[in-house]
């Protein structure tokens, strides 16, 4: 199966390992990703803060490009990109007047036929394949699944299985043998885009999240958003410098890649600020002992 691919800026920058692991996992699962040619900014966060029309049209340009390339679905791993693209899709679908204006605004034909999807959505659909291709089940690995905000809101557009109490990331994690822990802050704010203007807030919020995950027994936090990842992984330095313990933050696709037997290098696991290596070593030792 071939699916359109919109990486967005994060996946070419701070979230490179997300891009690498998504591509690697997609390959292993038999999904062909076709990057949208000449894709442009989704508009987050500035466009929708200043101009509502631009907030729809900017993402729609990418959808129009995908449409003319014959794509029916577009995978957007970045939760912010997903949110912008999906909102644009929804806005055009529910506003006939706007839909009529779109080709003129975009300067190209556009019928809003492309469906925007998250990594979670696509992976959940591939659960049977994932189960079948798991060669190295992550037995006994305790992880905390962290949803954040943009993957689930607003409910009428995104939502997953239940916008207020989702479980679909846990389902995927369980499928590869890992053990999702029950914890409290899986949908709390990580600080989002305050990372640059108000880093202290981010440190406070993401620290609470990490502490709660750790006290629930998690060995790692699993995310599906490059903003969450950067806030939770990068900002740990602020307090780990003072000798506190750390918690590795992994992309869901990285965890999945490990279970599918892909090597850590191709999954970008070396790119994290908090190294997952000690945890992976522990896991490897445990696996050997089990054999």
């Amino acid at each position, binding site marked *: 199966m071939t699916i359109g691919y919109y990486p967005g800026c994060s996946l070419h920058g701070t979230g490179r390992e997300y891009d690498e692991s998504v591509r690697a996992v997609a390959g292993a699962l038999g999904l062909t990703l076709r990057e949208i040619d000449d894709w442009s900014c989704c508009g987050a966060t500035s466009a929708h803060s200043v101009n509502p029309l631009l907030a729809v049209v900017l993402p729609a340009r990418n959808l129009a490009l995908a449409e003319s390339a014959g794509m029916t679905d577009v995978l957007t791993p970045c939760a912010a990109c997903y949110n912008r693209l999906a909102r644009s899709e929804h806005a055009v679908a529910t506003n006939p007047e706007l839909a009529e204006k779109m080709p003129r605004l975009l300067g190209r034909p556009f019928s809003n036929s492309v469906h925007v999807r998250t990594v979670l959505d696509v992976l959940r659909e591939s659960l049977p394949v994932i189960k079948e291709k798991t060669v190295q089940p992550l037995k006994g690995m305790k992880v905390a699944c962290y949803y954040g905000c943009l993957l689930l809101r607003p*409910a009428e557009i995104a939502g997953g299985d*239940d916008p*207020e*109490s989702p*479980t679909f990331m846990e389902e995927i994690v369980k499928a590869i043998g890992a053990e999702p822990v*029950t914890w*409290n*802050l899986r*949908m709390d704010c990580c600080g989002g885009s305050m990372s640059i203007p108000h880093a202290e807030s981010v440190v406070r919020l993401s620290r609470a999240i990490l502490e709660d995950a750790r006290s629930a027994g998690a060995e790692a936090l699993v995310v599906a958003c490059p903003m969450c990842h950067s806030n939770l992984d990068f900002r740990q330095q602020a307090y780990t410098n003072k000798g506190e313990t750390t918690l590795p933050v992994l992309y869901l696709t990285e965890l999945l890649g490990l279970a599918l037997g892909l090597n850590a290098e191709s999954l970008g696991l070396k790119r994290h600020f908090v190294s997952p290596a000690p945890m992976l070593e522990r896991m490897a030792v445990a696996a050997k002992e089990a054999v």
Partner: protein
Amino acid sequence: MARIGVFVCHCGENIGRTVDVPSVARAAQGFPGVVVSKDNKYTCSEPGQAIIREAIREHMLTGVVIAACSPHMHERTFRRVCASAGLNPFLCEIANIREHCSWIHEDRGEATAKAIDLVRLAVEKVKRNIPLETISIPIERKALVIGGGIAGIQAALDIADGGREVILVEKEPSIGGHMSQLSETFPTLDCSQCILTPRMVEVAQHPRIRLMTYSEVESVDGYVGNFDVTIRKKARKVDATICTGCGACMTACVQRKVSNEFDEGLSKRTAIYTPFPQAVPNIPVIDQMKCLRILSQKKGKQDACGKCLDACAIGAIRFDQEDELVTEKVGAIVVATGYSLYSIGKEQDSPDISGYGEYGYGTIPDVIDGMQFERLASASGPTAGKILRPSDGKEPKRIVFLQCIGSRDRAKGIDYCSKICCMYVAKHTMLYRHKVHDGQATVFYMDVRANGKGYDEFTRRAIEEDGAVYMRGRVSRMYRDGDVIKVVGFDTLAGEPVTIDADMVVLATAIRPRPGIKDLAQKLSISYDKHGFLNEAHPKLRPVETNTAGVFLAGACQAPRDIPDTVATASSAAAKVLGLFSQESLEREPTVARVDISHCAGCFTCERVCPYGAIGHREIRDRQGRLIKTVADVNPGVCQGCGTCQATCPSKSVELMGFTDEQIFAEVNAILA
């Protein structure tokens, strides 16, 4: 030769303002067959009626046309006038020149022309009317009440006290319903059991009430005054005729880990059980899903356990007892099936409804629902009335109550208000403070709806005297932090997010119809709304009747109701039943379908299209008793006169009396002519 009288009414100014009434009367004078035509200011008044009576006698009229208001308004009046002057009442036709003409038109000339047309077609129809006699149906003066909660109990007692026989069917082993689970009741704080149990005993001892517990309605046939009901008496596995209710079997039962439904899962019961000590009847049943003997018999092992058999001194335990079907004939049915509570967790019985996974119900043991709190507060409950939290049995010092759980939350699929929660939450905060003097109750609410007698005073008392803190806003989620439940919400009056520490959280869950109510509604041919609550015939003027004659509603099967409203509707349903039973026989309009057996080919298309099941089969035999043919046969007691059979009959063998093809065509021709 037809001799028709036409009487055109001014209806004060209502018709006369737009229609030139005298010229309508003059025009009618010239219609073929019309021998007299008059106009009158108020035809329905006594002088107006006298004019009609005189004209019928003087001109020996064979038909009367009244050009006036809608037949809904005064058809019965004018039919009575005709009858009193010796004319068959069904030889009277109404031409509606008010609702259908003067009220909706402005141009006087056009309105007058239309009124003349309407009179013309009524004249053409009435010429073809035939005298009809009202149909008389006998009544079986016995009522069936479905549901043995307070609604069913009240309705049954009222009907029985009114001198009529009642069969009360309850699907649980005991009557009492939800009210028997409650601790105290608002707004008086009187003990629920104390006011209910005497009524339950009264039901059991009433000479005119036959109580059928652990039974369900299997099917309903027939029509008002003559329903045939089949009731399934589920196997109790206990001989109710000899059991004394001593309880030795329950003491002996080794299966003691069954979740107790009466205590909402907060305690355990045995496999042979009565739901609660005050059960009526006080006769146990064996839970066939949990009884070790029955379970092992299913696996092929005989004679396992049997402790209850040994314990019962009089041999009342009957493992060979099977379900039994009983048929009864009743004249009226009261539906009083009550409500169920919204389930908070993820599992829902309908795809239109979603749960509150974010509240941790089912994962945090000290998040309970309102009914569970009732059991904790009840003297007959698992803690003997002490407020102790389920997780560790400690006394909670801080309880947060959340209102509108499910209710008024379109995102969860329930948009209505459950009506009773504002009041019972106020009651809970008071009961809590009365039992735990240093306890702090906090209530999250959307609005406080206290619109009943003494209700607002009651909520004020909860706040002002018993110190409940009311916080306007919603809770987004709850989680456990060690021993404490963190309640994360938003105070919309202060405009800020709040996190409150609680030892226990009580959710006021929405009221929903009983599961299975739609099946029952279909058996009774009554309608329900999109949520499954049963529909009344008219929300204001016929609140306890349904669209099926002889079927009445009581209590929360119709909408969320508190006890006072439930009892009021139950009594009014009972009054309706008694009114029905006080008639000699049932009279109904003869405008029903009739089959011409000489034409009918017995294809039974009519039977398939009849929405009321009014069409049966009739065998035509010759003198030797040989079958000639089988034809359709209309049961006039069931037929509602909709005319669907008439329209579909391929051989035109069914006619609706009063609306025959000939009459309708005459009307159409009169307009087109």
